[in-house]
């Protein structure tokens, strides 16, 4: 954290107990004296305007934040000084108290929020009505808003149509593309395809400020990302400088906690860019566009299977859903598809993010395939060996879930492993439903090593490699032999009477060590 007390720059009330009312006097003048409505807490354009109106000496444009110039101009301000009630002052003090700081919210953000809260109260004459003691601190508000966006976009009554789960596939592993979706788009949506073009022609006030998003935006070049970032900044600057900007321009920004953004972007493809400030509706796609985007992505995944591209696109899709608080059956579909694709590609970090969100979504009965993912979740925790989470996952399983083939399978896998029953485990491995095998592949080698360690200790003096092949789900004796040789020297194997045998006495220590190595804690990025 910055130790150079940033609130002083921003002319904020001193947190010291002796804080005189002086610093507060700037507050009303900053926001309301000039009839300026606090449109964008993130970009306070005040000094720019004031320097035109009152103060000829131009202040060098700062990067959107009010700084030094605020004070001198305030002194010339004719408005009567405003005294804040003690409750407000103590509220401000608490905001700056070190013990109330929250690591994830930096001081600037907190100040902006605080500014907004106090100005709003002052303008609406609510200073005396608000219970300042009970009012959450701005840093807490910011955190809550973030959490809310993450975990609780408003529940939509978009209908509860759940997708029928696809009939079992003959092959052991289903491809994510196999998963049959109910996305056979209704005719009206297809018919409206050319609506796109009409909307493209609608000019938005700030369009010329931004480089046009081109169709090859999907390419992953650095330049594109850079352009994209500039576009975000450019858009922000537009808001910041425009004293004349129409209210339509920034509905989301003027009232940061007044509800979700409503997007206006019509592009189907959009690169993911992590938000560092409030989302700009011009770059957010509304639900109908998102639906089309998903169709496009599914098609592209089938045709090209470019995971880097797909993952990036899905992240931006998820982001658009989140910032618009869209939470319905479509949201579930997006997360499910992304989770399946991530599974197929072994991207467990991304998979886990989807899974975490899906758990929240399923809790609201929005449809989807909760049992399929409950089963994955159990398998996932077997892999990460997170027993506390496993206990939670077990608590989530209902009696009805246990009748489901996939859930039952996952539970059996868990219990087989808990008891070291490798015989049962590898039987289950060979009959994994859905895409669970992608998860089981992640830990099957580890369990083979455990099983071999046990077998070497129990069987003497040697054991036919044929038996290992059958017990541990290898595809052939050659594969078994290769597996053994991957972990130990050739002397462990011996050919006798036409069969290859593993010398268990010698091999025990080898597999014991390999097992210990493989059972180190699994660390996955993005693990929550």
């Amino acid at each position, binding site marked *: 954290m910055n130790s150079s007390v940033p609130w002083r720059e921003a002319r904020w009330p001193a947190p010291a107990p002796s804080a005189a009312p002086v610093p507060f006097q700037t507050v009303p003048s900053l926001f309301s004296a000039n009839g300026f409505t606090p449109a964008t807490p993130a970009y306070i354009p005040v000094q720019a305007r004031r320097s035109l109106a009152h103060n000829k000496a131009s202040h060098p444009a700062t990067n959107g934040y009010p700084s030094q110039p605020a004070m001198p101009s305030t002194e010339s301000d004719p408005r009567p000084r405003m005294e804040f009630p003690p409750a407000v002052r103590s509220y401000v003090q608490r905001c700056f108290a070190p*013990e*109330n700081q929250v690591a994830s919210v930096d001081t600037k953000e907190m100040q902006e929020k605080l500014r907004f*809260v106090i100005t*709003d109260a002052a303008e609406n004459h*609510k200073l005396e*009505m*608000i*219970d300042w*003691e*009970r*009012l*959450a601190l701005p840093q807490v*508000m910011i955190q*809550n808003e973030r*959490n*809310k966006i993450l*975990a*609780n976009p*408003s529940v939509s009554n978009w209908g509860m149509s759940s997708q029928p789960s696809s009939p079992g596939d003959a092959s052991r592993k289903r491809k994510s593309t196999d998963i049959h979706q109910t996305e056979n788009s209704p005719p009206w949506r297809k018919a409206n395809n050319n609506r796109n073009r009409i909307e493209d022609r609608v000019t938005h006030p700030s369009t010329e400020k931004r480089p046009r998003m081109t169709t090859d935006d999907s390419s992953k070049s650095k330049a594109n990302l850079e352009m994209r970032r500039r576009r975000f900044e450019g858009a922000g600057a537009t808001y910041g400088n425009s004293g004349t900007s129409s209210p339509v321009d920034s509905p989301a920004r003027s009232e940061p*906690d007044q509800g979700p953004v409503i997007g206006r972007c019509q592009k189907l493809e959009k690169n993911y860019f992590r938000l560092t400030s409030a989302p700009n509706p011009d770059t957010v796609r509304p639900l109908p566009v998102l639906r089309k985007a998903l169709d496009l992505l599914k098609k592209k995944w089938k045709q090209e299977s470019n995971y880097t591209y797909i993952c990036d696109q899905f992240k931006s899709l998820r982001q658009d859903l989140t910032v618009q608080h869209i939470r319905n059956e479509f949201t579930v579909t997006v997360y499910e598809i992304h989770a399946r694709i991530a599974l197929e590609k072994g991207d467990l970090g991304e998979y886990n993010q989807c899974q975490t969100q899906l758990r*929240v979504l399923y*809790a609201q009965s929005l449809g989807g395939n909760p049992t399929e993912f409950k089963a994955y979740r159990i398998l996932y925790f077997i892999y990460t060996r997170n*027993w*506390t989470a*496993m*206990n939670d996952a*077990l*608590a989530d399983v209902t009696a009805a879930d246990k009748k489901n083939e996939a859930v039952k399978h996952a539970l059996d896998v868990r*219990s087989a492993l*808990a*008891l*070291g*029953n*490798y*015989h*049962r485990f590898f039987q289950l491995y060979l009959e994994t439903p859905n895409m669970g095998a992608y998860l089981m592949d992640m830990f099957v080698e580890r369990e083979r090593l455990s099983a071999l*360690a*046990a*077998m070497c*200790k*129990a*069987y*003497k003096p040697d*054991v*036919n490699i044929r*038996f290992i092949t*059958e*017990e541990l789900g290898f595809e052939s004796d050659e594969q078994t032999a290769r597996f053994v040789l991957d972990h130990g020297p050739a002397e462990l194997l011996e050919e006798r009477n036409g069969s290859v045998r593993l010398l268990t006495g010698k091999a025990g220590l080898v597999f014991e060590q390999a097992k210990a190595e493989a059972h180190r804690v699994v660390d996955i990025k993005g693990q929550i």
Partner: protein
Amino acid sequence: MGTLATEFRNAYNNGSGPGLAAVLTPIATRDDPDRLLTFYNFSNPAYLTKDLNTSFFHGKNPRVPKAEQHAWVDIFAAYWEAVGEILKWEAGHPGASAVAIFTAWKKVANAVIRGYSIQSGLPAWSLPCLYTVGKYLRTFAIKADLQVASQGSSGLDFQDDVAADFEKNATLEDAARVINRMFTLCLSDRAPIEESRKWGIYNTTNLLFKTYFKINSVGLTKNLIRAIRAQSDDLPPLDAFPKSHIVTFEYYLGVIHFLDENYAEAEEHLTNAWRLCYRHANKNRELILTYLIPCHLVTTHTLPSNQLLAPFPRLEKLFRPLSNCIRTGDLVGFDKAMSAGEEEFVKRRIYLPLERGRDIALRNLFRKVFIAGGFEEAKDGQPPIRRTRVPVSEFAAALRIGTHATGRTRVDIDEVECLLANLIYKGLMKGYIARERGIVVLSKNNAAFPGTGV
């Protein structure tokens, strides 16, 4: 007020921390059911500070430094307001709310924290006041959360009115932050140990543990443990602290290790807690045993005796059926008992370790097979030795006991071997499987099933 002030002065002059804490307790006592009301009626907002000052410190109390006097007056002024909210609540006043009580009590907590933080503020011997205030802060927060949940809205102007799942503990989380400051207040005190607030460290830690468990953030307890460990050189040894602090601390430490599957450490801490626990504190003893029994099952393969469980009918119900099945090697019964108790086991987070009891049940069953196998023919008058070569099929037959052996539930010989291999690997059996001959060769000299006499 008169009474309360007298109590305060008495407790203060006696240097009694618990006495002071009793004065700060926000409930009426049996001896004085109107305690809160009397105190509240004594003064009014305009004269509160003055009244407190006079009645607490007027006359012969020259030894209390000015700063400390102010601190006490601040605390009791906040206390007076909180008492007002509590009385409103108790009288069913329409404006009363559990949230208001919490908010008022939080001011008391903040005043107390401030009182300790300032120069020549509250003395360390008055720490029980901190404990009491923290304890009630948690209680009031839980009540406030319940109230918010039942009303469905927080009713604050500036917040979205959508009450969400993750907010159901919002007040308690707020309380946790205040209690965390109490924790820091104790841990970071640099005064000489005789007059240090470090003596309060375990009490405040316990309160935080409780709170974190309640808000389902067990992970946060790790930070506290780390902070304490970092300071351990400056802390007096555990046994120098009051037992009541240490029992709870050891219990939570044990449970935290337990949840991480560090059963050896868990057993150690839980055993400490069990030893120190007051013998008539049955509820606490029951809590300790809930985790200590599964620990023992995993670490030493021991089962609770009838005598141990006798005073605890709930534990008896929880563990007895399972223990009986393990003892007799009844696998079918074991599986039934596990699924019958599953919900309760999962809720208490003891399902996973209990499941491991199946190995012991299996061992006991196979041990019976071994014993039933009888002895080899004795040679030359030497003591008879048991038959140590047992066909795998005999173990397979034992596994069929209790199952309705139809064609479908046929036991797979490879699976029996797998179970045997596991017991051997885990050291529960000694011997080896000679696969080609289909027999298990067990250790001679009473070592086939270590620790069980055969």
